[in-house]
């Protein structure tokens, strides 16, 4: 019996080349940003280069929210679905949170619970459209995204709301070792836990199964509809947490900030780049995380290089298209393997 060796597995993994690109890109960015090329001392890297604390912290704060959202979206993609309403849900929850804090005397943990309940409802709404009304997830969630973003603007007539709970903000911004955000550890822990669930629990494996071939999964006695519901609700809760952390960072809830920053697109791009299949059934969060790091360093590199920021958006889209093409080709190969000898 021929065994697939671990080295071969690593070589096969789509995340491997990404990791290499990530390291190379980081080194390039560091070198350029340190100004060594212009004759500055290497230590400038830590004062105003890539490793300067302001720059790094910025990356870390962004990463926290993206990692949290990624845990939801990557699972949804692996399960063969998609949710494009993440930014909308994050915003809605942030707005409701801020509004309740401002207009009621409830302690913030209670408000938080209310928001999580609301998030569960959002997830249920998506599930309902897809499971019962048989909408394709793509269409259903685009529609919901629009509803959420519209609602957010309606609630405040387009205005921002201050987060009137200082204790919440300070909790979300607890730092370790001087300035390092504690939430980053939380986010990384979350990624590890989710990957653990995906690869080491039977529920996790059934997510892959129903994503890889929903009909086969159903005929094997799994319940793809139930799995989809859990994934949607999970995703909505993580989206809500992401939205609240975002608002805590900027100390206010804005009806447009999150949506216009498109963190969800970035997370979907990263997941697919990192080997999570857009067609479902394949990938892991490790790959998605590497791709997410890569995208952020890439972003930063463009900034460091003083490239006009619009190119940034272009580059992101370009990377997503490339990732989709690669994913399509490999999914097509798998599909053909089932058809022809």
């Amino acid at each position: 019996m021929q065994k697939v060796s671990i080295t071969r597995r690593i070589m096969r993994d789509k995340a491997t080349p990404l990791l290499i690109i990530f390291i190379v890109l980081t080194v390039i960015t560091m070198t350029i940003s340190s100004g060594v090329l212009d004759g500055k001392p290497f230590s400038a890297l830590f004062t105003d280069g890539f490793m300067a604390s302001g720059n790094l912290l910025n990356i870390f704060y962004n990463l926290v929210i993206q990692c949290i959202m990624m845990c939801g979206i990557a699972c949804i993609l692996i399960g063969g679905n998609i949710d494009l309403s993440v930014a909308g849900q994050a915003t809605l929850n942030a707005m409701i949170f801020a509004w309740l804090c401002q207009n009621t005397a409830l302690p913030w943990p209670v408000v938080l619970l209310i928001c999580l309940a609301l998030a569960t409802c959002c997830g249920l709404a998506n599930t309902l459209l897809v499971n019962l009304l048989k909408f394709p997830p793509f269409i259903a969630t685009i529609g919901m995204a629009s509803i959420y973003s519209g609602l957010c603007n309606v609630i405040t007539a387009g205005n921002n709301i201050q987060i009137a709970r200082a204790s919440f903000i300070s909790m979300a911004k607890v730092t370790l070792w001087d300035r390092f955000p504690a939430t980053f550890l939380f986010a990384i822990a979350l990624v590890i836990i989710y990957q653990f669930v995906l690869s080491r629990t039977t529920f996790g494996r059934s997510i892959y199964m129903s994503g890889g071939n929903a009909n086969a999964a159903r005929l094997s006695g799994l319940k793809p509809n139930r799995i989809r519901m859990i994934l949607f609700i999970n995703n909505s809760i993580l989206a809500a947490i992401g939205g609240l952390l975002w608002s805590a960072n900027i100390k206010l809830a804005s009806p447009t900030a999150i949506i216009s920053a498109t963190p969800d697109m970035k997370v979907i791009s990263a997941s697919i780049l990192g080997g999570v299949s857009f067609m479902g059934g394949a990938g892991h969060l490790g790959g998605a995380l590497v791709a997410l790091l890569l995208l952020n360093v890439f972003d930063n590199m463009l900034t460091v290089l003083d490239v006009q920021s619009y190119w940034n958006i272009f580059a992101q889209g370009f990377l997503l298209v490339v990732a989709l093409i690669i994913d399509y080709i490999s999914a097509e190969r798998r599909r053909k393997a089932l058809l022809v000898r």
Partner: protein
Amino acid sequence: MERSLEFRGIGKLYPGVRALEDISFKAEGGKVLALLGENGAGKSTLLKIMSGDQRADEGVVLLNGEEVHFSDPRDAIAAGVSVIYQERQLIPSMSVMENMFPGALPKTKAGLFDRARLRRDASEIIEKFGLPIDPTEQVGRLNVAYQQMVEIMKAYRRDSQVIAFDEPTAPLTDAEINILFEIIRQLKAEGKVVIYVSHRLAEIFQIADEIVVLKDGCLVKTLTTAQTGESELIHAMVGRDIGDTYSQLSRNESFGDVVLEVKNLKTQYVRDASFKIRRGEVLGFAGLVGAGRTEVARALFGADPVTGGEIILDGESVTFKTPREAIDHGVALCPEDRKEQGLTLQSSIKNNIAMPVVDKLGTSLFVDRTQMTGLADTAVSRYSIKTPSIDKIVMELSGGNQQKVILGRWTNEKMTTKLLILDEPTKGIDVGTKAEIYQMVCDFAKQGLAVIFISSELTEVINLADNIVVMHNGHVTGIVPRQEATEESVLALAMME
């Protein structure tokens, strides 16, 4: 206790069609029961009812003498009934072992997924089957035969009491079929109920103990293999003898001028092909799979680029860069893969028939719906396509009727087809419809069409075609007239040994 699966008075209604009517029979443990019938006879529906995928409208299913009601595949599996479908129900992106245990992955004491145990359990079964498969390999990377084996092992490890196979040998080679039959005999020896659905009569005689013949949703006959013969089975399936189908064909006897001449054709896959075809002639193409027959057809139709040689159509040297050009010159292709390349499955009969001529119906901007309906109506009545309406979605038709829709597309009065290429037109089609298609081919020839008939069924090619082009490894190795063709001589050319 004796294992058995019994159907009692099973009936199933689909909108507008009665799929099954009063089906009663009993499959016993330790025996292989073959389910035989033409496409659309109701075999698949019966399997779906068995697996809990669909519910019967009438009647009951008894497992080991007790009434069972499956409302979900999960119920059937739990009760020990496994159906191995023709379309493999595998998850290509996942490992072999996980594909063997979906919905039943082992857990550690802590409730986690127990990969090590899964691997042990899977290896044990794989070894028992004597297969060289790594349990951690991705299923999508296995070849079709091994995928099929994974599917069987999945049913086996569930300790199913009843295992049904739906056309399991279609993708397998002879050696692999032997392995499969060995496994089926093992299941039989273990006293399991085995239900075997197949088109291939030879196989049924090899493996089955009892045979249930279905026709048009009704049970025609229950037979014991030892006491029946091939002709009786065919008679039961078709309702008439088709032993002399070929001698009953009314053929075209008069050929016209040469329509197409191909000289030293080369493509990426075809090395050297030269042949001629006249008006009213049926030119057969024989050869092993991969000999280059389909590729010749694709080159003639402008679907593959031609890299050398010459195609002369009606005395004029042509090179088609796209199928559109070929169609405009009167060349039509019914491709080998009906569902993937021949039809838009989600679309209606009407739309499928009008597809290549839709721009010729009505004025330049608007489609003339009356004309479109007319074309479809003509095709349905001319080729007796069995359907309640021309608006029916093609996917819901049987294979034979789908093939007729494609033929209707290329031979309607809006088309100027002079060369009709049929690539495996009878693949997966039942015996009765096959005979109809043979007569249709002869009728096309009578109307003056030149017909290229590609088939892997040797008997069919030698009996239907006026001349037979034999290919091997991209080369034409011989052209034999029907009168001189025997299975041996053609096979010798096809194998070039």
